């Protein structure tokens, strides 16, 4: 820790800006910890990432402010930047907290602790108002805890640093209670992720006010889930169209593993190696022409576990064959280009994966905003898509519960008429799109789409990124899990068994159609096994299997 300077009593524009710059750094530094607090063990819209990126958007807006800018001006710019950069529901709420913070300061030139307390009170009130049905035990509660404590403290101790200390303490107290307020948090054994983000931001502001701007070592805080996600992200980046050989994944459990020499030796046996771990366990991902050689070598370090080998050459061939089929279709002549544009309504959908995007476009979507499970698009990205759409009336399909709020924000930021059909999944989007009718008005279409979006049941198969016990269902990190309409339904080690149980849990009476989107890096064999399972279990149903290309989710299935 540095020798501390005097705790700050009053903030001007510059020190407020410095405070937020450090607070954003501080949050970014703890991002993985916040991500790890996700209730569901799915690789889903990470709160830490979303809040950190939203803060980045806020800071971008104060990057070139004049040195003599007032606290009011800085706060106003931060709020605007956060609004445009907002990602995910937590990002949108954070942007509203900053909006309230700015209006609470009004046009102040400097601020002391009393001004800060007033700004926090207004931040809390504004955030509550921004949410249709406020729920306690969330970042709203934590923000109010900070505001209440700040107000109580500010009368007697009006220095900025003192009020921030009180606010941070109040926020932490509120955060600790969130599992008592939300049963789902208690079951998952975590505190609220967004609330934790608020605490980190206040902590960062406090440290800045105290002159203590060293970032702590977080390697012990960031638990396995964060590491697992980082591992998955790295692996995802390595799977391109040119992939060949066998994608080989396994773990080695041993003692006193010489990690450096193991890493070097294994990496030399193939390409795209990602090897992480310590002297007791290694997690290995490598593309090898001879996976047997890699496994034999690894055995000298200990026992092997979670072995998974996929033939990428076959996957790549399937993929390029599908791409060819798509471009052949695109080249088909009799479609008049003028017929392809809905007279004056554009539809914008959020999606990840080439195959899923293509399916949406073929059902009438005008443009795709890339994103979904792990990367929630910012308000700004959605706004840009709306502004560039070839129509003045736009329908937005967020396709994820964590993008709906950002989509709603867009309506207030553009001169175009925007309607959000609050789809929470790709299957919901497909159902909504089937009723889109060029003959109808925008509002009639939106009403039909909202009525239709729950016609299908959305099933997703993925892997748990952390241990959890939800509704009495114990899940271990790495296990296959099945979700029905966003709710965790089943978990297990055998994928087909999980699929079977998840489909049963979906409780669709007499299903007529299964539309399966196969995720990227899923082998042809695995896709074929799933198709056979569905065909055997529901012999009267139609089954369509498409290469969806989505990350993280091995299968997304629409049941109708």
């Amino acid at each position, binding site marked *: 820790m540095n020798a501390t300077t005097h705790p700050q009593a009053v903030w001007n524009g510059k020190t407020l800006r410095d405070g937020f710059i450090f607070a954003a750094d501080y949050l970014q530094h703890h991002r993985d910890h916040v991500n790890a607090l996700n209730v569901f063990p799915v690789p889903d819209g990470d709160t830490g990432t979303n809040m950190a990126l939203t803060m980045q958007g806020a800071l971008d807006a104060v990057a070139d402010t004049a040195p003599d800018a007032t606290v009011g001006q800085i706060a106003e710019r931060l709020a605007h930047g956060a609004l445009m950069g907002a990602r995910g529901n937590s990002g949108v709420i954070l942007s509203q907290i900053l909006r309230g913070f700015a209006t609470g300061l009004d046009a102040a030139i400097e601020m002391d602790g009393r001004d800060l307390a007033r700004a926090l009170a207004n931040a809390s009130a504004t955030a509550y108002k921004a949410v249709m049905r406020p729920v306690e035990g969330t970042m709203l509660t934590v923000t109010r805890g900070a505001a209440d404590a700040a107000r109580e403290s500010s009368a007697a101790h009006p220095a900025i640093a003192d009020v921030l200390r009180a606010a941070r303490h109040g926020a932490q107290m509120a955060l600790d209670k969130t599992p008592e307020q939300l049963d789902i948090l208690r079951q998952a054994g975590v505190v609220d992720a967004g609330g934790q983000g608020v605490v980190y931001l206040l902590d960062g502001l406090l440290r800045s006010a105290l002159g203590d701007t060293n970032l702590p070592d977080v390697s012990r805080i960031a638990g396995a889930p964060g590491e697992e996600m980082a591992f998955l992200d790295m692996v995802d980046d390595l799977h391109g169209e040119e992939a060949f050989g066998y994608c080989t994944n396994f773990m080695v459990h041993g003692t006193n593993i010489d990690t450096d020499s193991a890493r070097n030796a294994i990496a030399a046996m193939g390409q795209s190696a990602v090897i992480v771990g310590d002297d007791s366990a290694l997690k290995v991902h490598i593309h090898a022409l001879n996976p047997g050689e890699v496994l034999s070598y690894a055995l000298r370090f200990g026992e092997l576990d979670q072995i998974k080998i996929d033939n990428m050459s076959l996957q790549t061939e399937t993929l390029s064959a599908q791409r060819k089929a798509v471009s052949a*279709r695109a080249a088909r002549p009799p479609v008049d280009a003028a*017929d392809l544009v809905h007279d004056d309504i554009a539809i914008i959908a959020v999606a990840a994966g080439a195959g899923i995007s293509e399916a949406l476009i073929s059902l*009438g979507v005008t443009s795709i905003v890339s994103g979904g499970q792990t990367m929630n698009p910012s308000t700004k990205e959605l706004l840009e898509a709306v502004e560039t759409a070839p129509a003045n009336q736009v329908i937005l399909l967020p396709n994820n519960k964590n993008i709906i709020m950002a989509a709603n924000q867009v309506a207030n930021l553009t001169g175009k008429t925007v309607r959000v059909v609050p789809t929470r999944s790709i299957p919901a989007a497909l159902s909504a799109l*089937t009723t889109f009718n060029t003959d109808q008005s925008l509002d009639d279409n939106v009403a039909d789409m909202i009525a239709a979006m729950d016609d299908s049941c959305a099933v997703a198969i993925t892997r748990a990124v952390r241990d959890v016990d939800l509704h009495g269902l114990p899940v271990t990190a790495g296990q296959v899990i099945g979700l029905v309409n966003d709710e965790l339904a089943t978990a297990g080690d055998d994928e087909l068994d999980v699929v079977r149980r998840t489909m049963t849990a979906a409780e669709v009476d007499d299903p007529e159609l299964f539309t399966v989107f196969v995720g990227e890096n899923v082998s042809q064999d695995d896709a074929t096994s799933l198709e056979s399972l569905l065909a055997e279990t529901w012999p009267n149903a*139609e089954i369509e299997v498409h290469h969806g290309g989505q990350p993280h989710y091995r299968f997304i299935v629409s049941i109708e």
Partner: protein
Amino acid sequence: MSDKQQVTVVTDSTADVPAAVASELGIVVVPLRINFGQESFRDGIELTTDELLQRMAGSPVLPTTSQPTVGEFASVFQEALDAGRDVVCITIGSKLSGTFQAASSAAEQIGPDRITIIDGGSTTMHIGWPAIAGARMARQGAQRSDVAAEIRSATERANLFVVLKTLEYVYKGGRIGKVGQLVGSALNIKPIISVRDGRVVPIERIRTWNKALRRLVELTREEGDISELSDIMVLYVGEREDADTMQAELTSLFPEAHVAIGRAGAVIGTHVGPGGIGIATLRRR
């Protein structure tokens, strides 16, 4: 046939007016043609829908269709004029077929002063109901201008929704219009189509057959208040079972309407395929 009748109503075979109704109301039907290679058949006379489906099942090449000749219209018109009657003729839409052109040429030759040709703008019972409405009026002794006005008014009051099991036939048949945008669909869909401004247009893209059938009934229901529809016909090409179910459903939904069931002819069957089901409606004045 009443002696005071002054007008004969003529239509083409794609109107799908049931033979019994045509005979009762004195509607004269001019057949289009279905061609399998060198063989050509008059719709409904030399080739029934069942025979079409048998031939299609056994032939890798889809048949084509062609309009009636000018001469066929001319002889029908001449016969009416010889019987002392004027003619009002409604044809399949001119953007879908050359039939309107052939009828117009025939009228020009035979007696433009006594024959009115109306571009029906659509096909099947979407023009069949107007032909029937016109014929009912003609039976009561109305003159040509009134019958023509009734038919034109009825085309505004008629509507059509069709669900296709596959897009294959409408695509290969070339009568595709805006439905083309459905052909490239990455997903299997059961499109609901209609005819608007003379062209085939996609209305909705439903994923499953049963849902599409339910949606067809809903769309009909949205046509207007229950008392507004006077006539409804469920049309089918191949299997009748779904059409029967739909007829029963519509009968209970629209107790004040006349709900019939009818079979699409071989020309419509060629372009829609065996799995097509449609509902054609007529609203009251």
